[in-house]
């Protein structure tokens, strides 16, 4: 039965609360590594029983290749950080363009944003891989564009579009009273934007921006499809070098899943925490 006191606010329908990951009270602690290792150990004895005397156990194989896979994963993280940086910079500009006073700038920015938002990430990746030249010449200096750099640029395109939307959404969510108050204090539009609106928007933009980063990190594996040597490509190579043993498939793929989970889940929890802290009482 309802034991809560009534609020004085009269919602006809409550606003939807942000998605909570909070019901799952799972904090990643150091000791959590042990059940994982235990599982891999169990799996290895199972694998060991299956394999012939000459083959090494699943667990041993995994441990042997772990340093290489971890290096590959770090490369994924590098790509994600670079793509996020470039994408955020360009995307923020685009977002500001969407709220520009000039109708042409607004329409152009809107179109570019929608165009890259509607496109699948993999298609944009292909787009960048195939259509960017293998080297660019700037001021007489030839800069080679290796595959991974092209992939980074390709991934920064959807980031740009989503950041643009995040910025626009955050600015729109501020009550118009803020703009009116600034106007009555004789602030110019630029001053209003940079001194009043954007500082308040940063808080609102942080949770969706971090969520975007998490999605981007997970999207870096797409680079394996276009031939960039990151953790997924390396896993494939390792598996084939081990003779394509089917009992290795699940453990190795699980390990990759675990790497991403270990990186992205804390980000997700932190995002939920930020959302709660920055919850705007409107």
């Amino acid at each position, binding site marked *: *039965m*309802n034991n809560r006191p*009534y609020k*004085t606010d*009269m919602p*006809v*329908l409550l606003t939807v609360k942000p998605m909570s990951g909070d019901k799952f009270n799972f904090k990643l602690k150091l000791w959590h590594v042990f059940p994982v290792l235990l599982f891999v150990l169990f799996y290895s004895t199972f694998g060991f029983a299956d394999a012939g005397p000459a083959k090494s156990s699943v667990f041993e194989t995994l441990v042997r290749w772990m340093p290489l896979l971890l290096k590959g994963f770090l490369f994924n993280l590098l790509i994600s950080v670079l793509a996020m940086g470039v994408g955020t910079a360009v995307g923020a500009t685009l977002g500001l363009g969407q709220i520009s006073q000039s109708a042409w700038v607004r329409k152009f920015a809107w179109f570019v944003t929608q165009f890259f938002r509607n496109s699948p990430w993999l298609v944009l990746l292909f787009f960048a891989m195939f259509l960017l030249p293998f080297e660019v010449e700037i001021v007489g200096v030839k800069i080679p564009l290796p595959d991974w750099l092209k992939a980074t640029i390709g991934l920064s395109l959807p980031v740009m579009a989503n950041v643009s939307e995040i910025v626009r959404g955050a600015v729109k969510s501020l009550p118009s009273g803020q703009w009116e108050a600034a106007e009555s204090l004789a602030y110019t539009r630029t001053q209003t934007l940079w001194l009043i609106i954007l500082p308040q928007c940063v808080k609102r933009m942080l949770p969706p921006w971090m969520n975007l980063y998490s999605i981007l990190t997970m999207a870096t594996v797409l680079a394996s499809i276009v031939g960039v040597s990151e953790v997924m490509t390396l896993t494939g190579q390792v598996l084939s070098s081990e003779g394509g043993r089917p009992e290795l498939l699940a453990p190795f793929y699980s390990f990759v899943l675990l790497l991403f989970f270990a990186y992205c889940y804390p980000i997700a929890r932190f995002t939920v925490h930020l959302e709660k802290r920055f919850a705007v009482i409107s």
Partner: protein
Amino acid sequence: MTWDKTQPMVSIKNVHKAFGDLKVLKGVSLDVMKGQVICIIGPSGSGKSTLIRCVNALNDIQEGSILVEGQEVNDPNLDKLELRKKVGMVFQQYNLFPHKTAIENVMMAPIRVLKQDKATAEATARKLIKKVRLEGKENAYPGELSGGQQQRVAIARSLAMNPDVILFDEVTAALDPETVGEVLRTIQDLAEEGMTCILVTHEMAFAREVADHIYFTDRGVIVEHGAPDTFFNNAQDERTKLFLSQIL
């Protein structure tokens, strides 16, 4: 259980209720005869809302008994459906169903719960909407109505079930002052037609004029009660006098 008009319609005897460790009602007793209008007043947290919510079994009680037309409410085998056909309730937050129009809100319960056919339910609903003076607003959605209008639709919705007693839980507390009057007038009409009403309210002028009996609760007990004249002009207890001096 046989019940006749000479016995109280609602009989609350020594009711205790706690939310976990917090005791909210500490032995409350009161009787309501058929056709009476009872007002329960008191400071926030005194347990008034909790009390009337116990009458229609929205809250359970730990100790004591509540008899509605002779039927014990504090009974694990209680047929809640039957109880709620007899006891209607209007809430502070109106709680209309936002995805249905005003007339659909009023028609829904008779159709679904009383299994009436649509034509009968609609005819009754139209009459009730007219009665609460909202003719013309039948097809408006709650979001398009003002607070006072929504509250009157809520009253019509309870009336559609043809209850014997209606509970009003601070129904005007959330309304703008201008709209409070129209809701109180509607309740007054009901009272004059002989409907048994139990109101939790802050509207002292209304209580003075319409109530047959007033109960003052503070911290889970009934401190004082009496007919409006005696109560307002000749309060005995210190706490009552303090409360009245703050309110009036």
